[in-house]
């Protein structure tokens, strides 16, 4: 209880005074956040720079080319029963990913309530949504490749379209895939009771604890967050 109290935030000054107090406390600077969570945040920050640089490279080549950029609204249209729906597949992918973010948030919530069954079910549902997203992305890739899009050329306009498309969505899809694998591992840990029994993990030997679900959730929400930017800047722009 004492250690728990140490980490509660009530005893510490809030706001800017808190920032100064935390950084000058001659202990760890990030109060209330374990090192595991802090490191995940720092990793996500570095990932932000990677995706940020991809997106601004895309902005640079798109803004500096004299050749017309292919219209994403038409390129990513889906024809159903003779009618063309602009960006339909992308819209579905967006909704699937947001759904998965919601189920992940609920999983974290139930994890801290020590509800093993609901937590496992929600994590598996999140992984299922993620797998569905990757599946739809594979479909989209093969459709575009079939239509003649390559990293160096495409039938509709600026050659840079393919290079940026495959790099950005490919890197994001890889993140989703890694996330799905990570979620399956965490789901197994929760289901077996590893987190309740604080059983050491096979890879790091660290004791299982329910915060692992929240840290896994941070990564998953970040993947959704990146998609928000890709959706807006690549598909809608």
């Amino acid at each position: 209880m004492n250690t728990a109290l140490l980490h509660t935030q009530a005893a510490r000054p809030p706001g800017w005074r808190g920032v100064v107090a935390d950084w000058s406390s001659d202990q760890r600077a990030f109060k209330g956040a374990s090192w595991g969570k802090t490191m995940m945040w720092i990793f996500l920050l570095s990932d932000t720079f990677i995706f940020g640089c991809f997106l601004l490279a895309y902005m640079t080549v798109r803004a500096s080319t004299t050749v017309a950029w292919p219209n994403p609204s038409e390129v990513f249209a889906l024809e159903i029963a003779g009618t063309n729906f602009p960006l339909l597949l992308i819209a579905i992918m967006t909704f699937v990913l947001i759904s998965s973010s919601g189920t992940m948030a609920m999983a974290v919530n139930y994890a801290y309530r020590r509800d093993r069954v609901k937590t496992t079910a929600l994590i598996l549902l999140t992984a299922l949504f993620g797998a569905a997203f990757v599946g739809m992305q594979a479909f989209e890739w093969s459709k575009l490749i079939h239509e003649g899009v390559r990293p160096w050329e495409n039938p509709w306009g600026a050659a840079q379209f393919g290079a940026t498309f495959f790099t950005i969505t490919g890197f994001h899809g890889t993140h989703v895939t890694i996330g799905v694998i990570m979620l399956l591992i965490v789901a197994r840990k929760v289901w077996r009771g590893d987190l309740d029994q604080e059983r050491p993990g096979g890879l790091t030997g660290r004791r299982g604890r329910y915060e692992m679900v929240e840290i896994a959730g941070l990564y998953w929400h970040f993947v959704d967050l990146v998609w928000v930017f890709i959706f807006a800047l690549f598909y809608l722009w």
Partner: protein
Amino acid sequence: MAAAHAAAHSASHSASPTAHEGQQHPVRVYLVVWGWLFVLSLFSYLVDYFHLQGVLRWGLILLFMGLKAALIVAVFMHMVWERLALALAILLPPVAVLVFAALMAIESEHTLWMRQTFLGVGD
């Protein structure tokens, strides 16, 4: 809201013998944010569906993008409940990316101008 959270926190701490540094908040908060994310995504899709153009188009796209990103980071990733020291350490550095983007926007304008002027392409 703050009082409710404080109560929830103390309840969770006294309820579990091994209290971790967990974040626990009412389920309703998550559901409301979840709903808003769907609504905002629908709005951004409609921007494309109705073929809005010009300032209105990219203004709305950026607005909905920013709101969605803020909701995900603040609530789903619990940043609004973390200490300000952590929030600043994580949220301030990406400003450098925005500066970089601004520099490259200027740079690409210049490149485009050079190509149009000296390569005799485009108009």
